[in-house]
């Protein structure tokens, strides 16, 4: 009996506390202008972040394209345009491959018996010939 009375009293107290609890409302400060200012600030910040992210990804794309394209545009003038290919070079059959020039070997000059070509002389000959041809 006493147990039931205690239980009833508890239930009544719980009911009273619940009613009191539910009668509480959020103060105006929760949803005042400050909240909407904070929300707007957050929103504009996120819009700015999105725009910055888009600009950054666009820049990355442009730089990537440039990086891919640049080596090709550099290679071409270096190999084919800036190196003037001597014409009429007496050669022993120097081979030209795209992008690579193989220097001709020492010209075949008639050798006579007893001629000695020291290695240094050979290089000199080679250089002088090249200079001549460029003109």
């Amino acid at each position: 009996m006493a147990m039931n009375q205690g239980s009833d009293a508890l239930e009544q107290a719980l009911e009273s506390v619940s009613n009191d609890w539910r009668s509480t409302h959020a103060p105006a400060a929760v949803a005042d202008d400050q909240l909407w200012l904070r929300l707007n600030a957050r929103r504009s910040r996120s819009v700015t972040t999105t725009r910055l992210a888009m600009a950054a990804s666009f820049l990355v794309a442009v730089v990537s394209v440039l990086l891919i394209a640049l080596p090709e545009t550099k290679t071409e003038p270096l190999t084919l345009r800036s190196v003037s290919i001597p014409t009429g070079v007496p050669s022993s059959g120097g081979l030209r491959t795209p992008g690579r020039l193989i220097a001709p070997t020492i010209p075949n000059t008639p050798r006579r018996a007893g001629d000695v070509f020291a290695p240094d002389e050979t290089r000199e000959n080679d250089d002088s010939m090249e200079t001549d041809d460029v003109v």
Partner: protein
Amino acid sequence: MSTDQLDDRALVRAFQRGDQLALQQLVIRHQDRLFRLARGWLADESMAADATQEVFVRSLNGLTRFRFGAEPFTWFYQTLRNVCRELNRAKPVAESFEQIDPAPGPESRTIATDHMARLRNLVDALPERQREVVYLRIFEGMDVSATARAMRCRAGTVKALLSQARTRLKAQWQ
């Protein structure tokens, strides 16, 4: 259809489509309940108001990515729990909100008020999960399934926690 006639999910969808009035409606709809629950977890009313406002500020990003795996209120409530934990960690408090002196108060205080104050103290002294279920199921009057969704547990767990809480309160009440 005006926004106040839409349910929470429809409001979140409207917000995700860019309707700012939908967020306002969600704020109006949930601010009282969230504030009351925040008051239960925090030390004072101004902190509870700050926590409630912080939930809505966080909702701007959170609800944008909301995937409807749960009810929007569950998202609000779980965010509120996180905010309250953060605030309690930052500023630990010895007493919870409105810990009213259980001793007899001024003459104007009625017996009923004393009983309420005593009971609030007993509830505030419950283990966290039992206290949570009392707040949601008894004080807020949410049904078992809604309480379970908010607490992210099963309905059976809610019932068990509630039974444990009642047993404990009864033992201390007498």
